C-alpha cells in the first residue's frame, strides 16, 4: 500500500472511532423519560418523521426553495455514492468501465450542486451572517471529494489526490457540522418520539 492509502485508512479509523463515540453516547443516554400521559403512537411519530414528515410537499424549506432543495438532494445523493465508491475496494469489488461512465456524472452533478450551495452561502446575507469557517470548509471538502470521485472514475492517475482529499474529509468530519451525518438521524428520531407521544405527529393536515 502507498502512504496516501495508509493516510486515508488512518483517517477512516479516526472518523469511525469518533462517530462511534457520538453514536454510543446517544444510545447510552437513551430516550428522555416522559411522565405525561401518552396520547398517540411513538412508533407512528417516528415513522412519520422519517417518511411523510420529510416529504418536500410538507416542508416550506423544500417547496419554497426548490432550486436549493434540489441542489441539496443532488449533493447528498452524490455524497452517498462517493462514500459507497470509497468503500468499494475494501470489499474487493471494482466498478466496470460502463458503470464508471454512468456514475461519474452523478458525482460531478453533486460537486456542481455543492459549489452552487457555497456561492449561495457567500452571497445570501442571512447565510453569511450565520456562517462560520466550518460551514465553508465542510462544503468545500465534500464538494472536492465528489469532484475527485468523478475524476478518478474516469482517470485513475488522480487516485493519490482522491485518497488525500478523502482522508482530509474523514479527519474533518468529527470536527464540525458534518457530524450531522449522525445527529440528523437522532434529531429526527427524537422529533418523531416527542410529537408522536402527544398525538401531534403524524401531522393532521387539513
Amino acid at each position: 500500500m502507498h502512504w496516501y492509502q495508509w493516510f486515508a485508512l488512518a483517517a477512516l479509523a479516526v472518523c469511525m472511532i469518533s462517530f462511534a463515540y457520538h453514536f454510543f453516547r446517544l444510545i447510552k443516554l437513551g430516550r428522555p423519560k416522559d411522565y405525561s400521559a401518552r396520547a398517540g403512537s411513538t412508533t407512528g411519530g417516528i415513522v412519520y418523521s422519517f417518511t411523510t414528515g420529510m416529504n418536500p410537499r410538507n416542508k416550506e424549506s423544500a417547496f419554497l426553495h426548490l432550486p436549493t432543495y434540489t441542489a441539496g438532494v443532488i449533493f447528498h445523493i452524490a455524497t452517498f455514492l462517493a462514500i459507497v465508491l470509497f468503500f468499494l475496494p475494501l470489499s474487493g469489488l471494482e466498478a466496470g468501465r460502463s458503470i464508471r461512465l454512468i456514475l461519474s456524472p452523478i458525482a460531478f452533478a453533486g460537486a456542481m450542486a455543492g459549489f452552487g450551495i457555497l456561492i449561495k452561502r457567500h452571497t445570501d446575507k442571512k447565510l453569511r451572517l450565520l456562517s462560520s469557517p466550518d460551514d465553508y470548509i465542510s462544503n468545500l471538502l465534500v464538494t472536492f471529494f465528489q469532484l475527485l470521485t468523478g475524476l478518478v472514475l474516469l482517470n485513475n492517475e488522480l487516485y493519490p489526490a482522491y485518497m488525500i482529499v478523502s482522508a482530509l474529509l474523514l479527519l474533518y468530519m468529527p470536527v464540525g457540522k458534518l457530524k450531522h451525518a449522525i445527529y440528523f438521524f437522532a434529531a429526527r428520531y427524537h422529533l418523531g418520539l416527542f410529537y408522536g407521544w402527544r398525538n401531534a405527529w403524524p401531522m393532521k393536515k387539513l
Partner: protein
Amino acid sequence: MEKITKDKIKAGLEVLKDLQDSKLISHLNSCVHCGLCADSCLYYLTTGDERLIPASKVDMVSSIYRRYCTLTGKVFPGLVGARKLDDANISEMVDLLYGACTMCGRCVGHCSIGVDIEYVIRAGREMLAKMGYVPASLQATVDAALESGNNMAIADEDFLDTIEWMEEELQDELNDPAASIPINQPGKNVLYTLNPREPKFFPLSIVAMAKIFYAAKETWTLSANMYDVTNYAYFSGHPKHSRIIAQRMFDEMQKMQAKKLVLAECGHGSRASRWEGPNYIGKEFPETLNSVELIAGYIKSGRIKPDKELTQEIVTLHDPCNLVRSGGIVDEQRYILKNTVKNFVEMTPCGVDNFCCGGGGGQLAMSEYNDRRIKIAEIKAEQIKKTGAGIVATPCHNCVDQLSQINVAYRLNVQIKTMAEIVADALIIGYP
C-alpha cells in the same frame, strides 16, 4: 443589563455541561445553517431582519455549547463559530430568545433537518433564567404567580366576589336560581381551571363555560386556591419556578379529588399543565384534557345541542400553536365550529401550518417588546382580513388578548371570541 459574573456563567452553563439529555445533544449538533427556516418564521417574514431567523436563535445556544462543551470549540472557537458567554452575547441572547421568538414551533416542522428549534430556545431561556436575565416584565408575571397563586395577583376576596357576581349573571341568563358556579367542592367529575385574564378582564367567559356545564349537566368545581391554568415559568425558563407552579396544580387535584382536570382555553397553559407539568414534577397527572376536547365530546355524545342558525356571521378560527402543533388538538375545535355556527371558514394557512398571532412565548407579558409584537402580527391581520369573517374564534385567552390588540392596530373590525363563548351563544338550553 446587569454585568456578567463568574457565578452567573457557571449557573448558565449548568444547563449545557455534563448534558444527560440525548434529545438536546442531538438538536444542538444538527443544524447545518442552511437558513431555509427563515421563511417559516413570522419575525423574519415581517421584519426582514436576518438576525431573527430561527437558525440564528439556535446558533446562539449551540455556539455556546460548542465553546464550553466540545473539544473543537475549546481549542479552535473561531473555526466552528463558538461563542463565549459575555455581556454582548448575553444581550443578543436575551433579544433573540425572549424578544424575537413566540416559541410557536412553526419552524420545527419545516426545518430541513428536523431540529427542534423551540426545544433549543427553551434550553437557552433556561440558561438566561438561571443567570438572572429574564426580562423584568416576564419575571414579574412569574413572581406574581409564585407569590399570589395566580399570574395577575388577583386577591382571593376579589376572585370570590367576581365568581359570586358571575353566578348571579348565570342565574339571570338561564332564569334558574339553582344555576351555580361551584367553588371548592371536592369529589366532582371535573376540576375546571381558568386563565386569570377571565376573572380580571373577561368574566363573562366564565359564565359561558358555566352555561355549557349547566347544559351538559356536568358535576364540576373551581378551586379558589389554585385556578390558574397558566405557567409563565414555562416561558421564563426557570425550572424551579415551573416546578412550583405545576406542583400546586397537582396538589390541588389531589385535594379536590376530581376525576378529571379540565384546562381552560389557554394554549401554553394547556401545554404547560398537560405535557410539561408531569415532567416538571416527575409524576404522572390524573386524567387531564383541554376544554375544547371536553366541549367537542359533549356535542358528539349529544349532551349539549348548539343551534347553528343563531350565529349567521362568518366565523374563522385562529389555532393556538401550543394546541395544534405541540398538542395534536386540531380536529376538535373544527368539529365544534362546524356544529355551532352557520358559516365557518378556514384561514390560509391553518391548522398545523397556522401562523402564531404574535402573543405566544410570553410576548404578551413582555412590554419591552410591544412594538415588535404588534409588527409581527401583520401576517395574522392579513389572514383574518382575507377570510372576510366578522368573528374570530380561538381557544386561547392569550390569543384573544393579542387578537384584540391587533384588531385595533390593524382596524380589522371583528369580534374575538373563545370557543366557550361561541358555543354558549348557540346553546339550546333544556336539550335533550
